[in-house]
């Protein structure tokens, strides 16, 4: 009967091709007939909710208009999840609005602890690079010296004397600014900087940015991680001047050579430990292999692109995700 079927909920965005690909594998699998498959694109606003905890219960729970108890599996891919304030309260005053917003923010955060189990969680987006490195250090991983700055400290200037650094945006590499009647999207790729560049700006302040010691590469590794399984690809970006610092400066005529790669077991073990400690069960991990065969952990992107990795290496990652959704 339709009523008793459990639901697989996919939270994504319009035009997310990888979600379409996974859905193809889901529908192709005869087991999918036993589930209601539901996809929601964009932000999920929850209108009615009650969160509760009781001394007789082990963990808090919620009853909410959105997450019905039939949801067996929740795949978070894109979009926000937040509790809506009823419209009638929002019109009174900015002051009131402000109060509710901060109250709501706390419980919106808590709500993410209560969502159904699955792949990823909206809170994975709130990941902070420094926090990740703190955990990475505990797991014994090497990573480049990293500064988060909005002005150049003396300490940083001193450091810059002997080394090359790259600068990149904190998280999302593009910002929209309004200029006259235009909306301009600025995309910033990773750039090498030296002391001369810095002195042009010094001592002004700027948008909080990430400065990282430049690590020479033999090749870069992009890894897709899901519940302890690693699918890695080597990107030979060093042969091409255009992609040397940031492979996203794609050379479409002559794409970087991308081939299947197996990370050494000791390194996978450390990454697995890191993912467990961050409680992130799926994501894309970037690594640099230096000319001396050292492994530098760069970053985790919890909702990264995996289509090109899957295609180039013939990994069938989309099928893997579909199988995980169906168990």
């Amino acid at each position: 009967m339709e009523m008793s079927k459990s639901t697989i909920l996919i939270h994504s965005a319009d035009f997310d091709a990888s979600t379409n690909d996974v859905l193809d594998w889901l529908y192709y699998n005869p087991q999918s007939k036993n589930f209601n498959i539901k996809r929601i694109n964009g932000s999920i606003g929850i209108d009615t909710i009650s969160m509760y905890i009781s001394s007789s219960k082990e963990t808090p729970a919620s009853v909410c208009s959105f997450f019905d108890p039939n949801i067996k599996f929740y795949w978070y891919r894109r979009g926000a999840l937040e509790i809506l304030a009823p419209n009638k309260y929002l019109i009174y005053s900015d002051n009131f609005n402000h109060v509710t917003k901060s109250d709501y923010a706390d419980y919106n955060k808590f709500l993410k602890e209560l969502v159904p189990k699955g792949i990823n969680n909206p809170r994975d987006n709130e990941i902070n690079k420094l926090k990740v490195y703190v955990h990475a250090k505990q797991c014994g991983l090497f990573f480049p010296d990293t500064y988060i700055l909005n002005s150049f400290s003396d300490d940083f200037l001193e450091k810059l004397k002997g080394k090359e650094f790259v600068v990149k945006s904190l998280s999302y590499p593009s910002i929209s600014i309004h200029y006259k009647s235009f909306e301009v999207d600025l995309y910033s790729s990773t750039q090498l900087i030296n002391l001369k560049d810095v002195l042009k700006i010094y001592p002004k302040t700027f948008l909080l940015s990430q400065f990282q010691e430049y690590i020479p590469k033999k090749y870069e590794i992009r890894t897709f991680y899901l519940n302890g399984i690693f699918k890695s690809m080597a990107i030979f970006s060093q042969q091409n001047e255009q992609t040397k610092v940031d492979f996203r400066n794609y050379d479409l005529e002559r794409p970087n050579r991308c081939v299947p790669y197996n990370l050494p077991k000791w390194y996978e073990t450390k990454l697995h430990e890191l993912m467990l400690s961050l409680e992130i069960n799926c994501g894309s991990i970037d690594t640099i292999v230096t000319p001396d065969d050292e492994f530098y952990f760069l970053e985790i992107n919890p909702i990264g692109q995996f289509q090109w990795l899957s295609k180039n290496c013939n990994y069938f990652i989309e099928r893997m995700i579909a199988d995980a959704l169906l168990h």
Partner: protein
Amino acid sequence: MEETTPTQHIKLHSNCIPVKGAMRSVICDLQRNLYIPVPHSLIDLFDEDSLLNLELLETTLDTASLQIFSEYLHLLERQEFVFHCNKLEAKNFPTINTEWDFPSQATNCVIDINQGSEHDYTDLIQNELDSVNCHYVQLRSFDAFSLSFWDDIIKIINGSPIRSVDFIIMDVSACFSHKEISEWVYSNRKIRCVTLHSSSENKIVRQQNLGFSLVLSVKEKINSPISCGNIHPSYFSINVESFTESLAHNTCLNRKIAIDTEGNIKNCPSMAKSYGNIRDTKLIDVVNNADFQKVWHIKKDEITKCKDCEFRHICTDCRAYIENPEDQYSAPLKCGYNPYTCQWEEWSTNPLKQQAIEYYGMQALVKDEK
């Protein structure tokens, strides 16, 4: 930290795969979609892990051979088919997974149309093709139809899970102008290519954009399925998906479904055997029929001539028109390549093929081509 050994080896990238033919090999670059013919002797220098020890080579090859090798090494490096590495790190680079799989019971469908066809396009697209998760459709018409006829069909496709569609339609100025068809293609973004046949000239009517929205006109008259099945380098498909598919399956018929002008469900419109009519037969039942699936598994490695051809894993195939109609493993009739001489010749004038040409009633077609 492990001691690093000098990078005295080169290793073939796992997506640059050598395929040996009777006389020579080709390296198929499945990432950059190209191939380069090389002598067997070059490929034989690599071991089973695709590794070649450069230092060792210098002691084993004579000066003349080393000179030739250095030219080939330059080619391999320029194409980035190889990378320099030590034996230890080479172990981290596995061979590419050669599995082929696709989330559709039928990956592609050819629908033939003429004035007499009575296809129910709504049912066919919304129910039947959806039931086999078909992503790709080719509609081929032998007679003239108005643009509004095609527009009705594309509207159904636009609202379906079908990802892309190709049209092969007759170019008749009374039905539509090239400007009208171009605009129509532009506003229907699932259209990959429209080929206008029986046209006054061969030309590109509209340039492609990211692999879609191409409009071509060709002088060739396509008034029956008999013009299909040509084997030519321009049809080569050099990518992971086609390569892996060809290792285990037929590169034309695997998971293909065809509906001829009368609604008969077949492996290919050019083949005689029908597995029922769409009026009363479900596509999913045909696709699941073991007999229907038999031709899906005729591999290039089993086909006469193809199995000795260096292009076998990047080439298309044709099982409808073959050199010996009695032997389903015989070579495609419309292939003019000779892997024993490495020459492309005109297939239609080959004396050994005349009997089959007569068998399929292709004499007129062959004359037209000349």
